[in-house]
């Protein structure tokens, strides 16, 4: 059942805006808190990885589609853009970076719609396999068509003038990624409340009933996949600016799995989980190589994958809703304790249902 937003008074929104304002201040002020390395290698990375994971979480939480194709799609955006602008190793066509960025996003979105059309009639494990195949095909395509991927990648990709050199001055790219993240977050929240979004959530919950009601299920799913591709393509463009290069090795199956891990660790059914998972992933990725003590051959900086794997396992076992899910259950328990067992007209079940949003309920089925 799709729950609509509850009635709200103007006064109930004030804490929301205060909270948002504080968050905005924190994010905007981050550059003065951390050094440029951390700003670039942790925060900017977390923001673009978060957008990539958000495209996956959008599909899973609102469309019920867990896609492994997002890496392949953002690779298409990245390679398209990198080939069009001045760079070493690619086509080096010398386009204006802004036009090339738009072209990259358009091509990747079109590619996503095509993939969506192919995959839209499959569900569950079959959908997973088709989308995995998309990523693998894209990886091998760029690994083998060296005229499009350069020899070992396209390097020194020219970003728009406003970005500058992200290694020497990471600030513009950080704010670009931040604005893009906010737009993606707000955009998805908005889309979820449109008739299309509501229909999509209906299809997620019961495709057969929606079909019976006259909705074109396959079309809705394909379009949603296209939206996911659009979001992923933004991540693809940002990733190229971030590393100043794009190579087939960076969009391999391991990266496909990384995006899934980020989404699951953050929370596969909560949009915020994308960026939280990405931040945790970036922190562990960077600092596990510094902090992990050497214990013979068992432990050491080379065990990043083991660490992230263990965390993944613990999260999946302890909280299928990811880190956000843990927070939600703590919050729900707190509310229950504060309200007492029965208060006014609300039951305990009501309180719990209020605390978690509909797609979180969906995740528990």
């Amino acid at each position: 059942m799709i729950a609509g937003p509850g009635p709200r008074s103007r006064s109930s929104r004030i804490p929301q805006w205060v909270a948002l304002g504080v968050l905005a201040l924190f994010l905007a002020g981050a550059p003065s808190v951390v050094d440029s390395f951390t700003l670039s290698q942790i925060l900017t990375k977390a923001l673009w990885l978060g957008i990539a994971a958000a495209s996956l979480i959008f599909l899973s939480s609102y469309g019920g589609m867990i896609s492994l194709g997002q890496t392949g799609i953002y690779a298409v955006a990245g390679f398209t853009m990198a080939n069009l602008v001045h760079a070493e190793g690619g086509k080096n066509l010398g386009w204006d970076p802004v036009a090339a960025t738009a072209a990259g996003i358009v091509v990747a979105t079109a590619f996503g719609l095509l993939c969506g059309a192919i995959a839209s009639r499959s569900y569950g494990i079959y959908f997973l396999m088709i989308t995995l195949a998309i990523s693998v095909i894209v990886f091998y395509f760029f690994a083998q068509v060296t005229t499009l991927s350069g020899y070992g990648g396209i390097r020194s990709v020219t970003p728009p003038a406003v970005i500058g050199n992200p290694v020497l001055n990471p600030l513009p790219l950080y704010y670009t990624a931040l604005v893009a993240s906010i737009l993606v977050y707000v955009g998805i929240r908005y889309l979820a409340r449109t008739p299309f979004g509501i229909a999509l959530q209906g299809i997620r919950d019961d495709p057969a009933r929606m079909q019976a009601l006259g909705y074109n299920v396959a079309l809705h799913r394909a379009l949603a996949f296209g939206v996911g591709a659009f979001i992923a393509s933004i991540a693809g463009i940002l990733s190229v600016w971030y590393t100043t290069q794009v190579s087939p090795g960076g969009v391999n199956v391991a990266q496909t799995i990384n995006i899934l891990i980020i989404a699951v660790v953050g929370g596969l059914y909560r949009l915020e989980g994308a960026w939280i998972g990405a931040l945790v992933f970036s922190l562990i990725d960077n600092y596990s190589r510094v902090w992990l003590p050497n214990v013979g051959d068992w432990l050491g900086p080379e065990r990043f994958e083991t660490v992230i794997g263990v965390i993944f396992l613990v999260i999946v076992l302890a909280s299928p809703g990811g880190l956000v899910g843990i927070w939600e259950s703590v919050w729900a328990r707190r509310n229950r304790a504060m309200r007492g067992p029965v208060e006014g007209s609300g039951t305990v079940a009501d309180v719990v249902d209020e605390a978690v949003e509909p797609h979180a309920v969906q995740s528990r089925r």
Partner: protein
Amino acid sequence: MLRPERNVGFLRLLATAVLGLLAVAACNSTTPSTTTTSTVIKIGILSDCLGDFGSFFNDDLGGALAVLAAHYGGKASGPLPKDGMTGAVIAGKQINIVGFGCSDSTASKAIEETRRLVEQLGADIMIGPLSGDEGIAVANYAKTNQPNKTFLNGISGAQDATLKVQAPNFFRFNPDGAQWSSGLGAYAYNKLGWRTAAVIGDDYAFPYTSLAGFIAEFCAVGGNVTQRVWPPLGTTDYSSFVAQLNPTTYDGLFVGVGGAGLITFLKQYQQVNGSLKTQHIMGNTFWPDPQLLHAIGTPMVGAVAASGIAADDTSAQTTAYKNELAIYPATQKDAASVFTLGYWSAMTALGLALTAVNGDISGNQKALQTQLAKTVVDGPYGKISLDSNRQAVFDNWIVQITAPATSGGDPGIHTILRIPNVDQTFGGFFSPTTPAPDRTNPTCTKKTPPPWVGNEVPVTFGP
């Protein structure tokens, strides 16, 4: 009724963001100072600890650290190279190994790890990386973003990293993939009498380059490559590719398939064409591998292959090299590893150059970089100098597979030829404007043969 729970989404977001930022700030506060005092030189070493080459992590680090232990008073902090090293002093300057970069053979991770070592941990000088794509990316990073730091390649072998990127502060004291195949084209044409050849290799960058070395030389001396077959990387059944190869249509087959696939390919090739005719087949640097010799056995006896290492060399130079590596028993057993040799060569060159400039890394390290460009490493398997693109000119080796010493044993390896002064351009065949090696490049054209053709030196090591 008001529903304050509705604020949970925003509060949740806020709380996690605050926690995240606090975590970042906490991590940040532990960041060591990046200032360089005049008495300390900070070195970062980058290799792969994940991905296809992750298992060589300690071999790589050990190659570099063994030099510090043997010549500059370094003390190992533990039994494994990754445990670190302290106490090394070069020209009166303390050598501080700030950290080990841990990449996964992708360019993006290599850049991230290089940035961590340089920008976060403050390395003045970098040694690494390991694989081809990584090398190109790091050379670009060095050229564009860190012109005032010095980068020495680990063991990455992509031609472009030096031939095309030409970063003035990126030095490679190891050969590229094509150089490792030098000597074989002329050997096939002149000694084995091949006039036409087919080549087969995995469909990705390193085999393209490795086979390019054979094709360039074989075609330059007058041979013709009639067929190029590229099985996808990760192929486990080569039957359809074996079927494409008809030995009656060529004089010889050059095999550049690598890893576990090589054993499968050679077995399937024999099932279709009978026991290997070793006058009509040869291999690249993947061939002198004990696992392969064990798996295929005596049918390989007599075949020749290229090797960057003369493993049977017992000269004082080679023995000294092996003794240096003895500090790490884990890498000693792999003394024949090209990975170890690449990192050893880089640190040896750095030690020599730093000593020559008296440890001076002031003035944006220009004195050190000028010195490195003219440094000659007297390596265990020959001298290594640099060309004008700061790319190694070295001696390659041709090895022949010999009969097992005992019946039922594995075949051995005998070094037969030294290919002197192999340069990256193959005497002008490759240049900054030639297309990078791929499925169809280089094209097969007769040219002036590389300078080493006709100057190969027959050698005999051991009994």
